């Protein structure tokens, strides 16, 4: 593979505006569209636990009316030309972005800037959104997959930890949030500090940067605090399990897992390879082979090692017939045991390295793929030549590194396992 053809410092333009916003742009002249992918540091880590869901609620109200345009005007403008623009919120950041035909990029950025800078939280929309969120929470309570996952985070980190509680909130907290809470949260936390905006597609990089400058360049907020430090995680000392009983369901979802790596973890690539072997490679790795293929226990069983600013998670996931829950957990633990006791084979290691490197051009085929990759390179401070250096990092991982990384984070005796089902 010619790694030089991949995005790197030679063709990515990265510029810091005077107010601190980092703009990353890469032109893709063959593409018929342009994609915007941006982050503001206004996630749920900045809200009080008693107001769980406030950051998400605030983000979901940004496009419901601004000083300059009503909800109807905002959406009429973007939908009329087939532009997408959405806002989503996570623990550390609120993301916004979308896709447009090249001639509509200015409209997309103008609408996005107005939404994040000037929302007015109209009362009628506020109450309608509250009802929609509450209905969403009621649906969630009956979704086995989501409930198993929610219980997992709550148990692993604790229900008061910013990574533990649900950032969509709970019925009590959503009911208690007032309009003033949203206004205050916006006033305090939305600003240019730490903001990253990535633009990829059929637009000259310099033009993209000047458009960002014209819509965001004069944005300041002296109330905005510094970027929140990443939290730490508690230690798990035994096997902890929890079942969410949802009667009437035909399948049980299981999440078994551990505290995972930070993105800055020096073993990150070893962990990534270990996870690929465990539950990704070739239709879900070893877990796919044992849980799905050998035992026929589940339609899906796979694993994810998600890194974060702070501690991430390493999860084994399966959906099984309710009578097979114990067997599936037993098989998962056996796989963990094998991974930390026995060195992976040379063949497996080689296959998984080859897979990770080979998948890069496919992942970077679309504007969304490139924008997402560049945004996370910036977000996690990996540098604009990360993709050029990646092959060396991956190739350098040994069988011993894989075992060591797995043994450091996984343990067949101390884990959290949650399930939701009948």
């Amino acid at each position, binding site marked *: 593979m010619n790694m030089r053809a991949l995005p790197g410092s030679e063709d990515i333009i990265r510029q810091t505006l005077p107010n601190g916003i980092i703009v990353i742009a890469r032109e893709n002249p063959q593409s018929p569209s342009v994609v915007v992918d941006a982050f503001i540091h206004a996630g749920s880590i900045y809200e009080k636990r008693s107001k769980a869901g406030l950051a998400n609620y605030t983000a979901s109200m940004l496009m419901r009316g601004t000083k300059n345009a009503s909800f109807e005007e905002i959406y009429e403008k973007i939908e*009329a030309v087939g532009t997408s623009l959405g806002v989503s919120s996570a623990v550390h950041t609120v993301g916004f972005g979308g896709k447009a*035909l090249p001639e509509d990029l200015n409209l997309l950025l103008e609408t996005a800037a107005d939404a994040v800078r000037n929302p007015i939280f109209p009362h009628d929309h506020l109450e309608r959104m509250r009802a929609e969120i509450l209905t969403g929470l009621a649906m969630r309570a009956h979704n086995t997959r989501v409930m198993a996952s929610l219980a997992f985070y709550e148990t692993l980190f604790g229900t008061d930890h910013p990574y533990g509680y649900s950032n969509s909130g709970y019925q009590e907290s959503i009911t208690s949030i007032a309009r003033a809470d949203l206004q205050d949260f916006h006033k305090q936390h939305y600003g240019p500090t730490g903001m990253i905006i990535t633009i990829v597609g059929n637009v000259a990089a310099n033009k993209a940067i000047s458009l960002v400058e014209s819509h965001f360049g004069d944005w300041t907020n002296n109330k905005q605090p510094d970027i929140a430090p990443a939290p730490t995680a508690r230690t798990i000392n035994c096997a902890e399990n929890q079942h969410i009983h949802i009667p009437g369901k035909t399948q049980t979802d299981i999440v078994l897992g551990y505290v995972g790596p930070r993105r800055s973890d020096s073993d990150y690539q070893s962990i990534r390879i270990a996870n690929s072997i465990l539950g990704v490679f070739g239709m879900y790795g070893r877990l796919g082979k044992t849980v799905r293929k050998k035992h026929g226990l589940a339609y*899906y069983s796979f694993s994810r090692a998600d890194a974060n600013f702070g501690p991430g998670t390493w999860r084994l996931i399966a959906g099984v017939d309710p009578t097979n829950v114990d067997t599936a957990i037993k098989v998962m633990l056996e796989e963990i045991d094998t991974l930390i006791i026995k060195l992976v084979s040379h063949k497996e290691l080689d296959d998984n390295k080859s897979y990770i490197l*080979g998948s890069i051009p496919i992942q970077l085929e679309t504007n969304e793929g490139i924008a997402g990759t560049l945004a996370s390179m910036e977000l996690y401070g990996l540098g604009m030549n990360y993709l050029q250096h990646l092959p060396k990092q991956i190739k350098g991982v040994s069988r011993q590194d894989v075992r060591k990384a797995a043994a450091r984070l996984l343990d067949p005796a101390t884990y959290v396992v949650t399930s939701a089902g009948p």
Partner: protein
Amino acid sequence: MSAAKSRLRNGLTVILQEVHTTPVTTFWIWYRVGSRHEHTGITGSSHWVEHMQFKGTKQYPADSADREISRTGGVWNAMTWIDWTTYYETMPADKIDLAIKLEADRMTNSLYNKKDVQSERTVIISERQGHENQPVFLLSEEIQAAAFRVHPYHHEVLGDKIDIESMTRSDLYKHYRTFYTPRNGIIVAVGDFKTSQMLKKIRAHFSGIPKGDKPSVFLRDEPPQRGERRVFVEGEGETAYLQTAFHAPAATEPDFFPMIVLDSILSGASSFNLFGSGISNKTSRLYRALVLKGLAADFSGSLAATVDPFLYSITCAVRTDRSIEQVETALNEEIERATNNPPTEEELLKAKKQARAMFAYSAESVTNLGFWYGFAEILDDYTWFTNYLDKLEAVTASDVHRVAQNVLKPNNRTTGHYIPNAGRAN
């Protein structure tokens, strides 16, 4: 955009398009087989056959194909739907030969070991159970069954559980051998290759496979519906859902394109490409009438491009503080409005511009293009896709009005309620 279509002597259709912007190629093989080609007793067999196609051949035992593709960084997968089953590999362009070999091999040489059939049976039951956990699946399944009394579109792609439990290895193998033939297949490749070389490789691997017999399909047309049908599903949860479905034109009927515009006006623009991204629908008529009015938490419209007439359906999640009847009344008022008056010119222009944008987005990656060409060829001809925007452009407000009057009639409708038991045991 220019694709080259040819047919091998054994009847296999081949559609090729070069795209040299990234070093990636996608290879698809489509078969004209889906739940439409199943009779009772073997419902779900097309989908199960798709699963079995990953269980290996002599040349590529189950795990070896998986391993060889994954090693290149490539992705492969398969999908089964009412009209078709398709397999694809998207890979670094210099590795695509592997996909050609593999697909040629498994067109005829899949093993169907009894043991694999048995373990896959529980996997598929588990897949079905996962779906049954979703209220909207349970409701749609009943609505489809009520809307199609005669035509095989009446059962779910996954099949009825009783059939999944009872089907045998020989049922599946027979289904496979009947439909997996060159004359019933379509190859699509899009990406970084030279057309003449790609065609040569395809010939080398596929032209030796016998044409196969024309599959005899047990297919019965659905008679006209003579009045509204209603179904009720009771189940777990706190949220009520309303779904209403109308018999809608097939993809090749002249009324299909006005139907796309009608759907866009009612429920927002969407793409038929399973890999395409959509846009929000907050200026659509139904969003205004249902969500903005505070009746539904969410809704979606679904129009499918199909070989035979299928359904246009609208699904609403009822807000916990509202009743399903309130949502149904508001929905029916909007439906009546669409049948009483043609859309405005402004609405028509918007729907067309949205379709252009969506079309551009959905044709961006080689994988998306591979989907489009094969899908269009199954429905009609690959030009169904290349002429898509022109046909949409030709739609007038009176076309949309006429189609609304034909399709959105109460006697052409099946309405279903999902009634949650709110914690009471079933």
